[in-house]
């Protein structure tokens, strides 16, 4: 029995290492010089720590700017989408507006829409109103997309909100607006913070619509810059591993910072 347990454990550890192996390969090769790579291939250990490849790639894509763009877009979307979600869900879950089930169903359906069916009209409309190739267009679009999910989720969370707390606040003379910000938001904060983290990461990872909307270098996000470059097949081996490393690092940082929120909130993400 113990033998079998240990065998299963060993197997799981091996599988986990296999899963992590690509990350290790990327890290090893991103710090190799092109000559080292050419001579010893991708599997050998680097002969020396060669950071020039990463620096060159950073400058080539103006990576600092891309990081800033991604942060502005994902951060704005996370805050705005959580705000819109809680306000809409307040009316649906606590206000119990008539027809709320239909409205919630429509938001659920909105959440299912593939971006392919929205992308061309959005591209066309953005050009018509002068928002094409602006971060604002992407922020508006993903605030709508993420808040469709947030509304659907929060409406059901708020439907079970303790009624006696709401009644008590009303008896104290709080208006609807005050009840929302001073009672509902603080008490729902654990759920809202999970949504904030997920909206940030989901938006950070988006590619299709940002690629269509943001054509100028100054506006592109990290995934758009890396994806377009990869799609053009113009990178050599070391540039490609540097690109992979720079793309992986922010994700790993988020993962380490938010690990607890992510695993705690994964039940929330499950519904998406």
């Amino acid at each position, binding site marked *: 029995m113990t033998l079998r347990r240990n065998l299963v454990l060993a197997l799981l550890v091996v599988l986990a290492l296999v899963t992590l192996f690509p990350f290790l390969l990327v890290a090893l090769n991103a710090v190799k010089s092109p000559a080292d790579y050419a001579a010893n291939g991708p599997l050998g250990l680097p002969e020396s720590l060669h950071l020039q490849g990463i620096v060159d790639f950073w400058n080539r894509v103006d990576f600092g700017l891309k990081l800033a763009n991604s942060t502005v877009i994902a951060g704005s979307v996370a805050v705005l989408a959580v705000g819109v979600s809680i306000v809409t869900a307040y009316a649906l879950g606590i206000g119990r507006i008539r027809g709320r089930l239909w409205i919630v169903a429509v938001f659920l359906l909105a959440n299912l829409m593939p971006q392919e069916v929205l992308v061309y009209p959005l591209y066309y409309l953005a050009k018509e109103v002068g928002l094409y190739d602006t971060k604002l267009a992407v922020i508006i679009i993903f605030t709508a997309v993420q808040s469709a999910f947030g509304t659907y989720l929060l409406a059901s969370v708020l439907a079970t909100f303790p009624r006696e707390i709401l009644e008590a606040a009303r008896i104290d003379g709080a208006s609807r607006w005050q009840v929302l910000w001073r009672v509902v938001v603080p008490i729902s904060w654990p759920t809202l913070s999970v949504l904030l983290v997920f909206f940030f990461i989901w938006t950070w990872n988006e590619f299709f619509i940002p690629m269509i909307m943001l054509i100028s270098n100054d506006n592109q996000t990290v995934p758009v810059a890396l994806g377009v470059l990869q799609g053009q097949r113009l990178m050599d081996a070391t540039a490609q591993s540097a690109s992979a490393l720079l*793309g992986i690092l922010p994700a790993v940082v988020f993962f380490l910072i938010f690990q607890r929120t992510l695993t705690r909130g994964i039940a929330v993400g499950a519904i998406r």
Partner: protein
Amino acid sequence: MALLTKAPPRPPAAPPGRARRRDRGYLPYLIPGVLLFVVVIAIPLGMNVAISFTEWQGVGSPDWVGLEQYRTLFADETFWISFRNNLALIVAMAVVPTFLGLLLATALFDVVSKRHPRTTSTLRAAFYLPQVLPAVVAGVVWGWILHPEYGSANALLRFLGLDSWTQNWLGDENTALLSVMAVLVWIQLGYPLVIFMAGLQRVDPELYEAAELDGASWWQRLWSVTVPQIRPEVFVVLLTCTIAALKSFDKIFVLTRGGPGGSTNTPSYFSFQNFFEKANVGYGAAIATVLTAIIVGLTFLFLRAQSRREP
């Protein structure tokens, strides 16, 4: 879901007059959400359906052609191949990860979690890490590993003396789809694993003890105790992963651009090509509309099956 507070008994309903007044007081709160929904989702969706009945290059005025695009579409071999490829992606993103995730989650839960809780969370984190990456970055990583000349996959095979096994993984019609599928399994596996592990904590240990007393094998326990107990999780994972597979654009864009010879094309990528590369906007819109109809229909079927199983 641990985040939910328990519902208290509902207070008696307010008299109808008051209720209606209160009802209206909340209406302004709907404005931002509904406005965004209308502008970003409802109107573009309607426009896309309308465009699909036209012949349009994206400039000038569209020509109404009725159902012509759909007629062409259903006779278009590229479209059917892209759908067949999509089925393969569903296998790689929904079926295989669900099955493997179930095995790994039960193994981790049964064998490791009670004795080594730290090891369990480390292993879970390791399997989940690819899920946090932008799909594009996962594509860059694997595009590099699978490169025919300087990639690690072929280097590893040569190192093992298996030179004849080396392939142009993503560039050969015979291996491209399988390679993409393998990458998708790597990306996707952590998601069902984490969900199933959360679900397993809900299962009553007495059920396992009873099964053990009855002399059930590990397999029998998996299929007759675990799977029925976490059926809601299995449903959610299958549904969300299937939908995600139907929407596969970014991984295809980065890994293969639908090639070689359309062998990894998907409806999603095919619609993109028609919209933005071939300026065949009406046709692209028809593909996107059919894709949407399939996703909505599938969701409806899944939800109905789920509610039937749980009376």
